[in-house]
């Protein structure tokens, strides 16, 4: 198993945000984390990436316990995060954004440019001059340049135009086809569910359901996702 999260609990000061999240990802698997806003999806991701310290529970990645590990060490083990809101380094060029994070491995500039040809055209442009879609492509590429074993995408298509969203989904599908393990949070279920191998639903900071996306009933979608 690539990632195993058990009984994860997280507090923001006195307020408890996660009340017990369980999550498992096998190699080459794509897992969709679902839930309405404020249910703890981003907190779970932050905890996995060691940007937050859990108060209880265990996180194991590649057979190693991540608890209390610094975030750069966790990333070096192979966690590649594409954070919510893109968050590229705005004053650096596309090339600088990519090369600053690069580690040796299968993902190289050429391969990233092949996935997103637009980035090659804009390689000397500052990230803050890119469109929202291009910034998202850059954020995904930056994570890929760290040669991750698990790519974590937090709302990768949020706020993007439909055409650009399509390009991003196409890239995600390509990554999955190439065997990259992916943990994804996204609201566009129409594109997400057909791609995902597994899904997990968070409700009020707790994982309440896990299974194959095809097993998700309309009643569950209505109750947990507000659809």
């Amino acid at each position: 198993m690539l990632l195993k999260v058990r009984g994860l609990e997280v507090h923001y000061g006195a307020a408890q945000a996660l009340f017990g999240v369980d999550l498992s990802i096998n190699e080459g698997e794509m897992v969709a984390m679902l839930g309405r806003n404020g249910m703890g999806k981003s907190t779970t991701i932050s905890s996995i990436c060691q940007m937050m310290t859990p108060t209880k529970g265990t996180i194991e990645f590649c057979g190693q316990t991540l608890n209390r590990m610094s975030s750069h060490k966790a990333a070096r083990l192979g966690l590649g995060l594409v954070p919510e809101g893109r968050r590229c380094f705005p004053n650096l060029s596309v090339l600088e954004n990519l090369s600053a994070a690069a580690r040796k491995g299968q993902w190289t500039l050429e391969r990233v440019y092949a996935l997103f040809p637009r980035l090659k055209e804009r390689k000397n442009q500052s990230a803050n001059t890119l469109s929202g879609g291009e910034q998202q492509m850059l954020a995904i590429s930056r994570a890929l340049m760290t040669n991750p074993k698990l790519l974590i995408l937090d709302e990768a298509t949020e706020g993007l135009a439909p055409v650009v969203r399509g390009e991003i989904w196409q890239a995600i599908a390509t990554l999955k086809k190439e065997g990259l393990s992916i943990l994804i949070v996204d609201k566009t279920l129409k594109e997400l569910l057909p791609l995902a191998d597994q899904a997990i639903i968070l409700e009020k900071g707790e994982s309440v359901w896990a299974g194959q996306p095809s097993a998700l009933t309309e009643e569950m979608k209505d109750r947990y996702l507000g659809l």
Partner: protein
Amino acid sequence: MQVTDTAPKPVTGFKFNREGATNVAVMAVLLALPLWASSVGEDYYVNLASLITIFAIAGVGLNFAIGQGGMVSFGHAAFFGIGGYTAGIAAFHSFEETLFMSVPFAISGTNQMLIIWVVAMALCGLAALAIGAISLRTEGVYFIMITLAFAQMIYYFAISWPTYGGEDGLSIYLRNQIGAVDTDHALTFFLICFGLLLAAIFVSARLSGSRFGAALGTARMNETRLATSGINPFPIKLTGFIISAMITGLAGALFAELNGFVGPSMLSWHRSGEIMVFVILGGVGRLYGPVIGASLFVLLETYIGEWTEHWQLLLGFALLGVVLFARGGVMGLIAGRARHD
């Protein structure tokens, strides 16, 4: 293909846009004036240009820490002073023909500038390693205060070190040498300083344009984001801080040579403030900004200072104007805002 094969090309600073043209013009004026002054026998102006050049080197060092790494150090006088004292102490022992230390091994003085520069930079690097290892665990105003505190510690140490003059400082009776080069000749010394300024700018530009520079830049923008990319920001920032200190230390060694004197004032917090003024006036993160900043500072001090002892009031207004209306400094006013502004 390795990532480094297509790493970004280093910024050379000689692109012929408005900023590039300004850079060339500033450096050309800085070179031409002492050449002219020397030809008409006015060594005073040559020495003035040397002072500007030395201050500019110190500014290039601090600018690397602030502009590239976002480390607002208010203690760079420590490195400036360590560089100066290295030159002074080496010259003192060379002149007196005594040993600096005899146990566990003998170290004598030297009057060779090349050796002094290497030792000065190495000592500044070590000092920056110790200071940075502690102060870089803090941020913002705490980082400023801790760097200031370290500089003040070294300042008071220098004051209480009677062997090397204590509060009175130490004279360098004979300027140190580089082989057969006559470093006492004002123009020759200026050209040495000018060459070192170009070297400091070149190193700063190469590093800023490298993967290391990109990582340092990202640490300035968002350390957490850098960490989630698998890079520990701490050693990156510490390395940047050390490089910055070494450049400033080199300037300190040259300053001591120029004045033939080294004293605790080189280590005082006023000096840290002055180096910061060079950077802010010229434009934070601008490669040639410290050259403009140092030029303005020295010219204001020299010419307005002749007219009134309150010349720093004018400097204060200039700084206020830059901070309020021109975040890119004077370079920003001339060449427009840059990506670091």
